[in-house]
């Protein structure tokens, strides 16, 4: 089954992950600049709920891969994205129903390999 690994990480970690692209075994990668916040509402210190939430710049990486490769890939990305501090990001794994390569009409696993 195909899965999507969606990672929200610190922008400065993108280069390292891009470099590791080949080693990760990813067949493709999509990157976007996004903004967001987590439990801390965008503050370093425990914020008072009266303060407005702050949307901080983050990078979102999306990778589609086969289920059996997910675990290793997630662990590699996690270790590369780690900052030792809060706000280092999150990684999500989602099911992908199908994939289609536009040029060849290949579907499923063949569409990404």
């Amino acid at each position, binding site marked *: *089954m195909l899965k999507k690994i969606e990672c929200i990480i610190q922008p400065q970690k993108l280069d390292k992950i891009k470099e590791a692209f080949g080693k990760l075994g990813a067949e493709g990668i999509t990157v976007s600049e996004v903004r967001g916040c987590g439990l801390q509402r965008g503050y370093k210190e425990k914020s008072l709920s009266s303060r407005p939430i702050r949307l901080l710049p983050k990078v979102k990486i999306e990778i589609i891969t086969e*289920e*059996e490769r*997910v*675990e290793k890939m997630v662990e590699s990305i996690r270790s590369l994205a780690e900052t030792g501090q809060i706000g280092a990001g999150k990684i999500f794994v989602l099911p992908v129903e199908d994939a289609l390569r536009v040029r060849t009409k290949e579907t499923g696993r063949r569409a990404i390999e």
Partner: protein
Amino acid sequence: MNKGENLWQTALQQLNETAKRINLEPWIHKKLRKSKRELTVSIPVKMDNGSVEVFTGYRVQHNITRGPAKGGIRYSPEVTLDEVKALAMLMTWKCAVVNLPYGGAKGAVVCNPLKMSAGELERVTRRYTSEIISIIGPEKDIPAPDISTDSQTMAWIMDTYSIDKGYSVPGVVTGKPIAIGGSEGRSKSTGRGVVYTLLNTLKHLNLDIEGKKVIVQGYGKVGSVVVDLLSKEGCKIIGVSEIDGGIHNPNGLNVGKLWKHKKREGSVAKFKEADSITNKGLLQLKCDILIPAACENQITKDNASRIRAKIIVEAANGPTTPEADKILKEKGAFVVPDILANTGGVTVSYFEWVQGLQSYFWTEREVNLKLRDIMTKAFYKVWEISLKEEISMREAAYTLAVNRVAEATRIRGLYP
């Protein structure tokens, strides 16, 4: 009082206390104090030397209100009907805690498997299956491995049952080899479940897993998996023991080397990069987390006051006696009870049964994720009850379990 009677009295006491706490209707309480069915069978078997031995076997179904009965089969020279009754009741509560649609059962054959050949064990297993065949089945009662039984034993039971029916019935047992319908991830499931439970515990206590000092008593089907997974999570495994003694290294054991040593020598004892320690001594070492993963009655009124761990996760069945439990509670130790912590095994057994009924099999990743989901839900439920009613995690787990069985009983009503 022998061990079996003791276990049965403890099981009744747990139920009585829970019944009082939740104000259980007397008729339901009375019903739950008794097994639904207790079958004792004779198992005549031709031994290798030509003589015939007649073994005794049991299958007890404690309750089937929420679904078919589920529970292991153990081979032991000391097992008694009381022990089997107690363990069957415990299975009812375990299945209810994690909300599996099962009741509880347990089975046993009084025999010494260490003194029997593979052929003799196969004949005992097949004849025992044949003697209990009328009360087992995928929709009635589904056995699984327990002490001194394994996937091969389950394969023999499955084969005997299937021959009797005239077609393959993989759903009659769980813990089967993968080749005949076993589930991916089943063999590591109890250990994995223990680890999920510990991770949930730490999360709720606002603690980090990284660098926690852990002692694991037992390095078998459960303990070895716990050691491996916890070291990957960043824990320091500082002590491990088996029946013939333990090892201790305050700086953390190299678990990869330990596994190889065990494979080579058959035991963790005499592992070079650690000091030797007795099983008793191991339990009393300074550590953050203690995981008894061996057998019952390890933490008793005699040693409970000397246990220094702040968190105890019961991977074994009944490792803490009720008296010891009270002492630990007074000391402020956080005990995660067996009926919550070690339900990973029966949960993946449930997955195996579901996969067998559908004849559609899942990947190991799928199994593990579903296991984590079920164990986490159960943990949250028990934690919530424990906070709300200001009771221990054990009391909360029993409250949840007995309430679930009682609700089903109430809704179904009494026939006629």
